[in-house]
Structure formats: structure tokens, C-alpha cells
């Protein structure tokens, strides 16, 4: 291609090169995935596109598990005008720690386009004397991230996830960092901390399973599949002087764990209908909705009309409960995810001053569920067979047990 074509508009020259590379990679990928004989018949004659075919083959190699990845433009740091001294690491102080966390999407990467690069932690001292840390991935000696398009981009030194000052019994900087993906199954959460003086051990609990994290020089690093709220993550840090800290990661009091998928969320809200009447509702939805437009989402609600929401004269019920198995299509409408699966949901609201305990029995076990904030509760289960005992048991302040059996919707008052 003559170089002088777009002399006055280099952007068109660059855009053309990017389009050609992408098209060649796409054609090469399509040819590689087809049966060999068919691929031979359909394979285009590349001619001058030959150089870009190399790029396509590199992509195929990356998918096969080598550490050679497609590259994108480096990610620039914030402009000097926007960067605070406390959040700006000095370039000569930057170093990538020896800690590595393998990409947990290994099996995903092997069959897809996402290269499998280990996670690492880059630290440096800010101009204000704080310790700054950035989470990234290593491609050879280059520190950066692999985007959803499968390309590795080096990250400028000015990009930091957080900065802080060391204090006894706490890391100078700690956090969780999500590496998002088009599907929740491919998202990854990286748990990190640095500048924790005398830190002995770091233990991550994932859905009840304990997993020790590597600790070096007061830093720790680990990576798990999925979003932080999906896996009931807890981090326990133990220091040389015996100090222990234990905290839940990525959850709110409204987060409801799914047995095998993304987390849910239960909420309540009130609205005024007229001067003397109010409506009180509880709703169940996905903690993080999928890719559908929001207007296609349908969240189940339980509502009650009341003279006043609380206090004397209230005619609101003391509990509103639903228990039933939602089909995959119904769950998809709630979560916005095409790959949703059927679930049995037992959820609702109880007046906290009247009902002290909620237990949901589904299939083999019975679980006391938390009543949160305004009394909302939920338990999400794998589909409970109709023959299995599905029960919601409410225990009142006076010890009375209200047993709600099977599927249905209930609304009532206690004595």
C-alpha cells in the first residue's frame, strides 16, 4: 500500500492498518476453526495481507496457552494536573514484587481468546511518602493488563490502585480488583495488600474453603474466578505479634449468595400512595445485572399497603414471603443473563420487632437466614424438587412458630 495515500490524514492510515490486521486475524481464525478440508477450500488468498496473517497466528498461539499475546496501545497515566502527590509514585521507586497469582481462568483461556498471564503487584513510593500499589499482569517483564479483547496493554507508572501509610496490624494499601469480562464466568477478582509489617500469613476463604495466599515482604496476592460478591470471600491476616484481622470482601448486608452462580440482592423500599397510605415493597434482583438492557429486567416484588409503615395504627402485615422455583427464563428476566439457570427462591420481609428468626428448609438442609436492615431476607437454592420439603419457618418474639409449606406467597400478622 502506498504510504502517501493518507499523508494529510495519518489517522486514516492507522485506522486502515488496524482494520486490515483485525480482518486478517478474523479470517485466519475462521479458517483455523473450520475442518481442515473445508478450510482449504475457503481459505482466502492473502496476497499483501500476508504480514497480518502472522498477527492472526499469534492470536491462535496465545489461545493455545503460550505467553505470546496480541498487544494494544500502552495505557497512559493521569495527566500531571489531575494526579495528587500522594497518589503519584516516583518512577525510580517502582518495582514489581516477586509475588505471582496464577490466572484462575486457565481452563477458560485455553479454549478462548484470553491469554493466560499471571497477576502481579507493582509497588512504589509516592511523592508524599506513601506506599502505592497497582495490580496487573506480567507479559515477560512488562506490567500491564489483558483487556476483554485479549490484547495486553502496558500500564504507565502513574496508574495506581491505591496508596497508604503503614500502620501496626494493617497493610498500608489493600483491596480487591476486578478484571471484568463479557461473561461473569470469565471475570476474575484479585485480592491484594502491601506494606503489612510483620505479616505472617494471609488466608482467603472462598465459599467456605480456606486457601493460603503467598506472603512476601508484607505483601499478599491471590486471584479467584468470578466477581467478589459471588464467592463469599473472607480474608484473614495474621501478624507476628499474634494480631489477627478477619474481614468479608466485596459484600454488602444485602448480598445473597447463589449456590453456583452470581450473587443476588434483596432490597426494600417504601412509597407514598396518598396522604394517609403508603406502600412497602421488598424486591429480589441480581447483585450485578448482565448485558440485557435494563428495560427487559423484571424483578419480583412483594408489596403491602399500609396506613403507616411503622408505629401505632399500622395495618401493615408482619411478614410477606414467597417460596417457589423460578424457571431459567424467569431467572434470566431477573438477572439479565442469557445463561441463567432455574433456582428455588425463598425470600421476603419480616417485621423485625415481631419476628426474631427466619429458617428456610429446602431439600436436605435448613438454614437460618439473616434478616437485614429493614427485615428483608432471601435464600437462593438449586431447584428444589416438588417432593422435597420446602419450608419457611418464622419464629415470633413470643416463641410462636409460623410454618409456611411448599410453594406460594404468604402475607400475615402475628398475634
Amino acid at each position, binding site marked *: 500500500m502506498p504510504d502517501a495515500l493518507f499523508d494529510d490524514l495519518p*489517522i486514516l492510515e492507522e*485506522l486502515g492498518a*488496524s*482494520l*486490515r490486521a*483485525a*480482518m486478517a486475524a478474523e*479470517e485466519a481464525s475462521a479458517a483455523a476453526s473450520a475442518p481442515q478440508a473445508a478450510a482449504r477450500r475457503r481459505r482466502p488468498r492473502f496476497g499483501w495481507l500476508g504480514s497480518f496473517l502472522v498477527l492472526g497466528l499469534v492470536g491462535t498461539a496465545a489461545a493455545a496457552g503460550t505467553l505470546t499475546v*496480541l498487544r494494544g496501545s500502552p495505557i497512559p497515566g493521569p495527566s500531571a494536573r489531575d494526579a495528587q502527590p500522594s497518589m503519584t509514585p516516583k518512577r525510580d521507586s517502582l518495582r514489581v514484587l516477586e509475588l505471582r497469582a496464577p490466572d484462575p481462568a486457565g481452563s477458560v483461556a485455553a479454549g478462548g481468546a484470553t491469554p493466560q498471564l499471571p497477576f502481579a503487584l507493582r509497588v512504589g513510593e509516592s511523592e508524599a511518602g506513601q506506599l502505592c500499589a497497582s495490580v496487573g499482569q506480567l507479559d515477560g517483564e512488562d506490567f500491564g493488563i489483558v483487556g476483554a479483547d*485479549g490484547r495486553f496493554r502496558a500500564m504507565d507508572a502513574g496508574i495506581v490502585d491505591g496508596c497508604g501509610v503503614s500502620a501496626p496490624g494493617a497493610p498500608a494499601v489493600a483491596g480487591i480488583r476486578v478484571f471484568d469480562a463479557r461473561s461473569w464466568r470469565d471475570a476474575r477478582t484479585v485480592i491484594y495488600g502491601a506494606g503489612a509489617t510483620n505479616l505472617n500469613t494471609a488466608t482467603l476463604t472462598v465459599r467456605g474453603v480456606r486457601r493460603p495466599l503467598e506472603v512476601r515482604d508484607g505483601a499478599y496476592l491471590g486471584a479467584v474466578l468470578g466477581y467478589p460478591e459471588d464467592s463469599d470471600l473472607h480474608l484473614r491476616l495474621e501478624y507476628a505479634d499474634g494480631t489477627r484481622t478477619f474481614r468479608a470482601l466485596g459484600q454488602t448486608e444485602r448480598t445473597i449468595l447463589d449456590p453456583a452462580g452470581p450473587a443476588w440482592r434483596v432490597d426494600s423500599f417504601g412509597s407514598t400512595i396518598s396522604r394517609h397510605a403508603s406502600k412497602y415493597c421488598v424486591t429480589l434482583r441480581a447483585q450485578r445485572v448482565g448485558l440485557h438492557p435494563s428495560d427487559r429486567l423484571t424483578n419480583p416484588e412483594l408489596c403491602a399497603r399500609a396506613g403507616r409503615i411503622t408505629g401505632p395504627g399500622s395495618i401493615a402485615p408482619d411478614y410477606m414471603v414467597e417460596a417457589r422455583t423460578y424457571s431459567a427464563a424467569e431467572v434470566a428476566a431477573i438477572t439479565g443473563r442469557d445463561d441463567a439457570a432455574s433456582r428455588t427462591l425463598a425470600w421476603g420481609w419480616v417485621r423485625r420487632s415481631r419476628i426474631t428468626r427466619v429458617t428456610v428448609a429446602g431439600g436436605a438442609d435448613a438454614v437460618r437466614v439473616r434478616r437485614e436492615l429493614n427485615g428483608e431476607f432471601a435464600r437462593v437454592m438449586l431447584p428444589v424438587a416438588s417432593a422435597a420439603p420446602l419450608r419457611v419457618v418464622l419464629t415470633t418474639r413470643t416463641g410462636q412458630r409460623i410454618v409456611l409449606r411448599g410453594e406460594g406467597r404468604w402475607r400475615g400478622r402475628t398475634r
Partner: protein
Amino acid sequence: MPLSAEQLSRVYDAHARAFVAYFARRVYDAELAVDLTAETFASAFTHRDGFRGESDDDVVRWLYGIARNEVGQYWRAGRVEQRAVAKLGVERRALTDGEYERIEELAALEPLRRRVAAELEAMPAEHAEILRLRVVEELDYGVVAARLGISEQTARARVSRALKALAVRLEPYLPTEEGSHA
């Protein structure tokens, strides 16, 4: 014969500049014009199975059909859809000042802007003022209504009438498709 990357690349080299000018004259913004050009070619490639033609001229005609849809979609949604570009992983940097000016020059936007300014001057003061507030200063309808002491509904209606009146005045000066990619 199916459309190949090679043929589409050849057409890009010959016509990308004309497409950028075509878009710039319809969305009045050089950055958007480049985005729309990228999306048009990327979309043509991702939908290449739907191409029914052989020659490069056939490809160009097909591309202008896609381009018309892209412009319509832009005005409906208020943003450039970049599905095909994202699917292919095509990236671009921001325009330099020189490139910005060159695209405006190619699209003859400056004379068009002068024409718009002249037509605004010639419009009734009520129309000119409300277009200045809503279109030039990009104020919300609520703010426009407050400035003019009218209801928001009235402001919307006036803006709509003023835009239609301006479109009628500019009709003789707007490009035809043939002229824009000749």
C-alpha cells in the same frame, strides 16, 4: 463472490477519505466522522456474507447503504454504535488538531457553518434565540425554559419548530450523496 478482506482493504484505501467527508457533513464532527467510517468498514466485514456483488463499485454502493444506516442510527441514539469495531478489536487514537482541521476542510464544514450562522441571523429572533440556547450552548430544556420564562413543554415545541425551519432554509446547501463520494 464473497467479499474478502483484501477487496475491502482496497476500497478503504480508495474511498476512506470520501467516507470521512460524507459523515462529517452529516454529523458535523470530525471525531464522530472517523468513528462512523471505522464502524461502516468493520460492519461491512462482519456482515460480508450479506454482500451481493462483485466489483469494487458494488462494494462502494453497499458501503454507502451501511453508512446511511449508521448516520440514521447515530441521530436516533445520539451516539455512534461501535459493535463491529469492538467485535474486531479495532482501535484508534484521538485526532490531532491538524487532522481535525483537515477533515473539516474536506467536508467543507466551515462554509457550511458560515451558512448556518447566516441563516440563523435571518431567522425570527424567537427561533434564533432558542436554537442558540439549546443547540449551541447545549442547555437542558429546563434551563432553556427558565431563561425564556416559558414552560419546558413549550421550549421543546419551539426548538422543534425552529429546527424544522432551519432545515428548510439549509436544504439547498446540503450535500447530495453522489456529490459527497464522487
